[in-house]
Structure formats: structure tokens, C-alpha cells
């Protein structure tokens, strides 16, 4: 006899864990399986764990703003569970979005007003008063250091920014997933690690369960794909699922750098999260008074779509494997070096290389599938970390409604967000949608 559950969740990262948690709270007997040794050790571990509200769509802003409330109330969200590793901490630094040609900030401002996001408009003087190391010249368009015009002197100045007092980052993304796992276990959830899924079994258009690489079969009428960069491989294992998606997912290689803050600037204590489309970078403080420098995927940068198994095994060669490259180190650090002229850039690259699970339009797929009982929370594209607790609640509601007979494709499920009081049409995240050209097609979402 195979072991049987009400739902199997594939992936115990920051997206899978909250779905498990919320399903368990609804009374589902759940099993989470993950090929890694513990929760949040896959691409979650490489997340910058930024919490910010600016998105390219109003629903995107509302969704993120709803997420803030969970991070601000983390212990309550976890129902005061004890995690022997301690709790992840949300660092509410505040968040600056510089007004630039690299962001549709006018739209963001409109969305902030519509959703009720708290923000202030800062002029350049105010920004420099708060962040004295900045040079607010305009460097647009984003270029690479290999391009001689990268070094041209700027002429114009930027025109201020939008500051959100709410916003920041979570200090340990792996730990945050681990916290949610412990909270889920307290509600009866089970987790199985070092377990790689080899097949999704189905019969008569209904999912039956999973088969692990060691041959173990586990049964459940509900299977949820939260496999991060491996999501497309899991979809391909499930009959008709990959073919039934108009929006597909792929794994995109991405580098994030750590560069020491200028000595006279206490970035770790005084600094903000900052999105700077003018140089194609976002930054947040990192322990050791470092700048964590992420890339906003400017058009001039190469995009490397890779096989996740090859990548994590360190194969594929320069620029495709899991090692930082000198070119990208220089690109990201020099770009920030223009904005912060006192930033010292070491010769040795330091940072993180990991994968995005990226959809065709960089907006995730939160949906059912063409296979009965098989659901997806995929394509989280490097911009859904902050939304993870809300995704958990939304996916659990969606799954429950569909299992009780809702035809979500015909009458899209409306998710009620408890903090912002708004309704979200989950059909926005449909696998059947056409590519959403309002998207930023980047990490900005």
C-alpha cells in the first residue's frame, strides 16, 4: 500500500512552505517533498528577500502590500511556533524608488494611490540628506563597462524619488522558509527531504500521486508544483500540463554581488533598500556593512537560460555555471560605483549565483492545470519572495475552491485579501493568459 495524503506539495521553499501551511490549517493532510536536505535550501537560499511595494500593475502593488502585513506580524502569522533555529527577521529599512527612465514610476505612483500604499515624494536634496554617499546624476541608458560610452560624464540630474517608509528585506530567506515549515508541522504537515520527484502519476485526467527517484510511490488527489527553477521539469512529468500552459516557465541564471560600503557610511544601520532603474541595480544592506547589489536585468546584459540540474552541478562553463563572472561583477559594481563614487570595488568577485524560475512575461502562474488535481505556483521570477505568505493563503483558497467544484478557468476565483480588504482576480495569474505587456519583464515584476 502506498502512503496517501490529501495533498502533496513539490518543493519546500518559500513558496511551497506557506501553501503547505495554509492547506494544513484548512485540514488537509499534507506532505511536502524536496530534493534538498532542508526547507528553503534551493533557490530560496539565493533570494535577496526584498520586501517592497513597487510593481508594474495595480494588482501587483496590492498583492505585495498585503504581504508586508505578514512580515510585520511574523510571529502571529506563524501562530507563535517555536523554531529551534530562531526566527527570520524583517528589517523595515524603508524603500527608495529613484525616479528614472528605467522605471515607469508614474504608474507605480498611480498604483500606490489606488492601493493606499504609504509614501512620500523626495527631491534630490532630501535623498542626499538621507543617503549622503549618492551622486544623483542621470547615467541612463544602462550600459556595460565593455562599452566605452559607459565612462562618459553625465550631464543631467535625476528628479528625486518615491520613498516608502514600509519596505526592506528579510535577513535570512532560508530561515523564513524553515519557520513556515515548523508552523506547518504544528498543524500536522509532514516534510520529506532528500526526495527527488521522478514522475507525476495520473489516471483518467486526474492526478494520482508522485513517484520518487528511489521508486517510492505516494498517493494524493492534489499535487502542487512549487519546484522553483525545476518547475518546468515537474510540469513536463504531469500528463498534458506543460502542453496546456500558454505561459511557460524556464530557469534563468542570475548573479547578485556583495561589495563593502564606503567606510564612512554605516549602510547596515542607516541604509535603505533602493531601486535604481537608471543604473539597472537594486541594493539593500547585507551583514558586514555590505551593499548587496542585484541586477534589474537591463537589455544590454546577457540572459542565460539554463538547465537547473546542470547549473546546480556546476556544469555548463563560464557564464552558465554556478560561479560568479568577473564581467558581471564589474558591470554591477561599476554601475553602483557611478551612483556611489566612494564605493571601493574589490578585485575578487563576491556574491551569489542562483536561478530564477521565470515565466514568459515575468508574472507568476498561480493556477490549476489541465490535469485534474494538479496545481501550480510557479514562475516566481525573482520577485515573489515578499508575496510568499499571501501566495500560501491564496493558493490554499484556490485549491480548496477548485476541489469543491469551482470551474476556475470559466469563473476565475476571487481572492479576498484580509489586510488591504481588496479582492484579487486570480485569473490574472492564469496559465492560459496571453503575455501581459504591462509587465516590466524584469525582476521588478
Amino acid at each position, binding site marked *: 500500500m502506498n502512503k496517501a495524503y490529501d495533498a502533496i506539495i513539490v518543493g519546500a521553499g518559500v513558496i511551497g512552505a506557506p501553501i503547505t501551511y495554509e492547506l494544513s490549517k484548512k485540514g488537509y493532510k499534507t506532505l511536502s517533498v524536496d530534493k534538498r536536505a532542508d526547507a528553503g535550501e534551493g533557490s530560496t537560499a539565493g533570494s535577496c528577500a526584498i520586501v517592497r511595494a513597487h510593481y508594474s500593475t495595480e494588482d501587483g502593488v496590492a498583492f505585495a502590500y498585503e504581504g508586508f502585513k505578514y512580515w510585520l506580524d511574523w510571529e502571529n502569522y506563524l501562530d507563535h511556533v517555536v523554531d529551534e533555529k530562531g526566527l527570520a527577521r524583517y528589517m523595515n529599512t524603508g524603500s527608495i524608488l529613484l525616479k528614472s527612465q528605467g522605471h515607469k514610476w508614474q504608474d507605480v505612483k498611480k498604483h500606490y494611490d489606488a492601493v493606499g500604499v504609504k509614501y512620500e515624494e523626495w527631491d534630490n536634496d532630501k535623498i542626499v540628506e538621507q543617503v549622503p554617499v549618492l551622486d544623483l546624476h542621470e547615467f541612463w541608458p544602462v550600459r556595460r563597462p565593455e562599452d566605452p560610452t559607459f565612462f562618459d560624464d553625465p550631464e543631467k540630474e535625476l528628479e528625486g524619488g518615491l520613498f516608502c517608509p514600509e519596505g526592506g528585506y528579510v535577513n535570512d530567506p532560508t530561515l523564513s522558509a524553515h519557520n513556515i515549515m515548523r508552523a506547518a508541522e504544528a498543524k500536522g504537515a509532514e516534510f520529506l527531504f532528500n526526495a527527488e520527484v521522478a514522475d507525476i502519476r495520473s489516471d483518467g485526467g486526474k492526478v494520482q500521486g508522485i513517484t520518487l527517484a528511489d521508486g517510492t510511490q505516494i498517493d494524493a488527489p492534489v499535487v502542487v508544483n512549487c519546484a522553483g527553477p525545476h518547475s518546468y521539469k515537474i510540469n513536463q512529468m504531469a500528463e498534458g500540463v506543460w502542453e496546456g500552459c500558454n505561459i511557460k516557465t524556464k530557469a534563468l541564471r542570475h548573479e547578485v554581488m556583495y561589495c563593502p560600503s564606503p567606510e564612512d557610511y554605516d549602510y547596515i544601520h542607516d541604509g535603505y533598500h533602493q531601486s535604481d532603474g537608471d543604473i539597472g541595480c537594486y541594493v539593500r544592506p547585507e551583514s558586514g556593512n555590505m551593499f548587496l547589489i542585484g541586477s534589474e536585468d537591463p537589455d544590454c546584459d546577457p540572459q542565460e537560460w539554463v538547465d537547473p540540474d546542470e547549473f546546480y552541478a556546476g556544469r555548463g562553463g563560464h557564464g552558465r555555471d554556478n560561479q560568479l563572472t568577473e564581467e558581471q561583477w564589474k558591470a554591477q559594481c561599476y554601475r553602483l*560605483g557611478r551612483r556611489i*563614487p*566612494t564605493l*571601493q*570595488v574589490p578585485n*575578487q568577485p*563576491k556574491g551569489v549565483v542562483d536561478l530564477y524560475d521565470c515565466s514568459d512575461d515575468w508574472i507568476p502562474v498561480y493556477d490549476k492545470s489541465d490535469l485534474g488535481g494538479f496545481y501550480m505556483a510557479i514562475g516566481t521570477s525573482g520577485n515573489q519572495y515578499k508575496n510568499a505568505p499571501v501566495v500560501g493563503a491564496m493558493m490554499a483558497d484556490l485549491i480548496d475552491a477548485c476541489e469543491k467544484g469551482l470551474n476556475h478557468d470559466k469563473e476565475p476565483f476571487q481572492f479576498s485579501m484580509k489586510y488591504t480588504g481588496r479582492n484579487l482576480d486570480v485569473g490574472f495569474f492564469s496559465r492560459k493568459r496571453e503575455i501581459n505587456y504591462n509587465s516590466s519583464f524584469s525582476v521588478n515584476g
Partner: protein
Amino acid sequence: MKIYVCVKHVPDSAATITVKDKAEIEEGITFLMNPYDEHAVTEARRLKERFLESEVIVVCFSRPEAEGTLRSALAMGGDRGILVTTGHRHDPIMTARALKTAIAQDGQPDLILTGRESIDSEGMQTMFRLAHLFNMPAATNVVKIEITGNNALATCEKEAGAREILKLGMPCVLAAGKGLNIPRYPTFPDIVKARKKEINIIDVEKLDIPEPTSRVERVHLTPVVEKRIPKEITGTTTSIAEQIVTILKDEARVI
């Protein structure tokens, strides 16, 4: 004062090194300035701030790709660079001869700075051979340099944890240890300035270098596979902290 700083183009210590043809490493990885040499360049810049008339010339004997490393050294404070190019790897005998010839052709050194060793071959020979070729005194693992008249006072750290102060007649060769300074990495304005600094590129074949009668050849290179054995430290918070300090002091010897 004319200060020559010898820098080496080495593989990034964080890169995954793979061996090819038994004795060579796969070169499709990041190469950068030898970390000890960063201290040497930083010290040269510091000395130039004290002795304003000084010139800092950075010298490298390597593949043409090493221009990037030389450019980094110029961004860190070098005034100009000399790159002696070669197609393959050389032993310390040849390296010292190439560096000596290039420096002597360029000018009269008052001080030559190097790193105490390179992190790839770890030979610790080149600076002594270079000093010998110039008939100069040398000191290694230098953690403090003072220039008084025609002498250099070099504080050197010994393996056993002792320190000695050596007086060397100038010109001399001093090899930087880690304690010498905190490397002063370039800012963006430094990088912009370095782009315009002169690098004299010379093919090693064009230098009239006397052929050594003997040489060192690496015939085999084997990576050592490090075994990581995790150990759980238990006890009260205080006792755990004490145990960690003991490990860092006695086993890892990093504090």
C-alpha cells in the same frame, strides 16, 4: 623615489579549479591580482603619499590577458604599468629574470615591492631571485615599512608569531604580508583614471634575457580533495562561545 611593484595574475581562489593535461589548470575561470600583491600596491600608494615625488610602476610577467590585472593595480594607485607578455607559464628563475630585465630597462629602482607569495604556485622564490639578480637585500612577510634616509626599516612577521625589525640598505626588495595594510580598492573615479594610464606591453622574446642553464618544471598537479567533517558544538551559550574561540585559536589559528 621610484617604486616598482611586481604583481601576478592568478586564478580566483573562489573558482572551481580543474586540472587539464596532468599539470595545467583549466583557464576558463576568473583570474585576478594575487591578493598579497594588493597589499604591495596599497603600500606603494601610501609611500607615494609620504614621498610626493615618487613614481609607482607596476610590473607583470604573464599572458596578455593580465592587462586586466595590471589595470586593477593602476586603479589602486600605480602610475603606469609594464606588461611582459608570454604564451606559457614559467618557473621562478625565468620569472625573476624577465622582471629584472624589464625593470632595469625601465629605470633605477629605489624600492621593489612584491607579495610574499603567489596563491597559485606558493613558491616564495621570485622575490629572492629578483633581489639576487639586482644584488639587493630582501625581506619577506613584511607588515610595516618605514623609510629613513637610505635605509628601509621592515617589520617582518615570523612563522612562530614573533616579529623582527630588519634594517635594509636601499634599494631593496620587500615582500608584503597580509598585516601590512588593508588593501585600498579602487572607486569608480579611480577606475576611470586608470583607463588612461600607460601600460608598456613588451613581448618577452624582445627582451634580451639570458637563458637559464637549469629550470623547474611542473610534471604533475593533483587537487587535494578536502573532507569536511561537521562537528556539533553543544553546551550553554557561554561554553559554545568558549569552544569556538578555542577552535579558532588552536586549530584554525586564525585569531
